[in-house]
């Protein structure tokens, strides 16, 4: 088990990093179920554009979110390099579309800096902070908070 501080954030642990456009993001690797290529999705009527639709993951219907659309990172392309990260959050399974998976990193709390407020699309609520690894800046995302948030509209709002 990770050493968890009071805010529920692992003080030190492994993170999966992936790229969205020019930026590099990191998420807790324990939330990742698997990584797979992008395949055709079935659209869901009248849903926000960033919800691409649902796929059949070995018999389970899994919704797919394109984070590039969510974070407004330009017009996304879908090719053989496009990757879907399947997350296991709570009891739910969902997938996020990213440009590519780059690395698994170790990050200690001293390498994690609080994210400044800049009123970006990505609310600081969903950020664990900014990590530095070999001169690279990695945006650490609290993926659980983000995916279950109301604005993602992935879960029934009853949770609010």
């Amino acid at each position, binding site marked *: 088990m990770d050493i968890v501080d009071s805010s529920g954030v692992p003080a030190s642990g492994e993170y999966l990093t992936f790229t969205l456009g020019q930026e590099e993001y990191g998420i807790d690797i324990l939330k990742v179920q698997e990584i797979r290529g992008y395949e*055709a*999705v*079935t*659209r*869901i*009527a*009248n*849903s926000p554009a960033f919800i691409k*639709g*649902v*796929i*059949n993951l*070995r*018999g*389970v*219907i*899994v*919704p797919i979110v394109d984070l590039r659309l969510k974070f407004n990172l330009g017009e996304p392309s879908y090719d053989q390099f496009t990757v879907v990260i399947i997350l296991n959050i709570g009891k*739910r*399974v*969902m997938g996020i579309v990213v440009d590519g998976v780059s690395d698994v990193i170790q990050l200690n709390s001293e390498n994690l800096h609080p994210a400044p407020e800049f009123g970006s699309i990505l609310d600081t609520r969903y950020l664990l902070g900014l990590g530095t690894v070999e001169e690279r800046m990695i945006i650490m995302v609290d993926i659980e908070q983000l995916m279950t948030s109301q604005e993602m*509209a*992935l*879960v*029934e709002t009853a949770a609010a």
Partner: protein
Amino acid sequence: MSIDMSQFYQVFFEETSEHLANMENLLLNLDVDNPSLEDLNAIFRAAHSIKGGSGTFGFSDMTEVTHVLEGLLDRLRKEELALRPDMVDAFLAAGDVLRGQLEHHQGGPEVDSGDIREISARLTQLAHGDSAAAATAASAPAEPARVLNLVCLFPPDLAASEAEVDNLLAALAEIAAVDLRHRPDAANGLLEARLTTARSDTELRDALAFYVGPEEIALTPAVGGEPSAYGLFEEAAPAAQEEAYGLFSEDPAPAADAAAAYGFFDDAPAAPASEKHEEDAGFGLFEDAPGRPEALPNRDVAPGDSPAAIEGPGYGLFVDAPGGLGVFDNAPGAERLSRPAAAPVATTPASTGRRLSDHPSVEVAKTGRRDTDKTVVAAGADTSIRVSVEKVDQLINLVGELVITQAMLAETAGNLDPIQAEKLLAGIDLLARNTRDLQESVMSIRMLPMSMVFSRFPRVVRDLAGKLNKQVEMKTIGENTELDKGLIEKITDPLTHLVRNSLDHGIEIPEKRVAAGKNPKGTLTLKASHQGGAVVIEVMDDGGGLNRARILEKAKERGLPVSDSISDHEVWQLIFAPGFSTAEVVTDVSGRGVGMDVVKRNIEGLGGKVELESSPGFGTRTVIRLPLTLAILDGMSVGVGGETFIVPITTVVESLQPRLDDIRTLAGDSRMVHIRGEYLPFITLSEVFGLAGVEDITKGILVVVEGEEGKAALFVDELLGQHQVVIKSLEANYRKVPGMSGATIMGDGRVAMILDVAAVIRLGLANAKRRAAA
């Protein structure tokens, strides 16, 4: 060694409820006149298993009840006693008590201890009583009536008036069986009576309040729940017991002797009457022993009171007997009260006497036998295993996957050269067959026979018919028809409602039936059958049928748009309207008008349909059509803007190619389509779902569907085919999507949405409105 027993509780609870259900089922099917030994043994085994289980887990209350139950059953199956209808009643009541106790152990409300004692008493009495005692038991009220001693002092002027006293007694007699002990007269204004009633104390007091002040009325239970009552007897009349016991067991006690016994008791509890009224329950038994005979006519005294006297000693003897608490609680006393005639009384003491002396030997014999029974039970061990539904569902999911994979393989293999890949293709064919078989057998695990639902109805019908004073015979046909477990659970409530409706409104009271030239006994038939991939459940009664005129009248009253010329079918549909009831009187059974609409909604929620057929004077038939399973749906796949949607086949009325001149516009923008004289809203699916579909009306297809709110025509690009699809939840990982009831995985592995037709119609109409407003 300490094992945490609680981990096994759940198993016990499940098993016990199964045993109880099984027992009830067997009891209801038992032919009272000629019971099969096999059935009696099966009932005995069920009771025995419950007793064993409850003993192991320390639920001693259940052990006690089953012990008594078992005692009687044991005598029955050994043919020492003949089965009688009142025994079946008592067994059923005992089953109810056990079920209550079981629920209590699972966190439910506690069972009224009075009920438990009452049933134990009834059973013991049945088990030990011989024919005469039994005959009296047969006449005992089925309702658990309480026996109360009433004592109240009348003002002298009132007591002196014959007429007033008569009035009062008549009023009392309306709510209770009155066994008058002392009639108030000018000399003595004391009214003493023993009441047998199911009413509450308050009601009794109210009946008297007109004549006497409440402080003058003393009501005490005639038979004691309090242990003190036993103690009291043991002390009060020990000598009397000995004597009475000796007297009655040796002597068959003709009426004359009973009178003598009475005389004997005369002196026993020498307490003055005034004191006794405040005394404890049990004392009431001796209430009129001292010094009352002269106030009462002789015939009443001798036969009437001797059993009461016997009752007292009985207590003393039985205090230690296992499960024998309150054995005589309402046995001879209560019966006697409900029966004015004195004839059988003479034999009652005799049987009581025998009962006392026989008791120990019966107990011993039973213990001896029980050991052999154990081996019998063990030998007949179950051939089934208990598996959680979750595991079965997981299996079904996996097999579903396998089916999809197999379909993909078969598709790919279709492109191979049949000569070169001969072996591979043969293997794939085999795989296809095995997969199909596997899927069928896995699906069948979830299937349960309809008897699971039907088995509860004989009881419902029996109880309800009794309550409504109707004679009803219930028939079930096709109880082996299998249905998905999920559906079985959800169909029970609507079916119960229909059965109650049939009993309450359908089947007439016997007099009316005879007047109509029918058998006074009505018939209610429950029938289940398979009809082309659907399960059809019918509830039929041979009652009066629906009253067309009254339904129409009510509908008009409620402002529903009806005319006298509409077809019967449409009239019957009216009763599915919310709040619709033609019942003139609202009973606690039905008539509040909450019901048929709920039934219809529930069944439609299961993907089924309800239809009614009725002919005046001949009865009503309600037909429920359900899909075989909740997990699989027959669907028509349609293509819209490159996506595939599944329309549940049950909602599809027809599909056709529209002609341009069939399409009419309404108020400029809302489109209607004219099909066979009907104007239906024209809903373009691609518009509802924001897809780019076919624009040209002549190039697409219209699918006419019928939802909750009526018909509509859905415009789609193309029809793709008809499939059985496995329903997958969207909510598990996502959330509810408006217009969709779920999703499924097609043969190519892609996801397709299943339309919720009613919601799609609503969305389509809302779209049209928005457009019109814009």
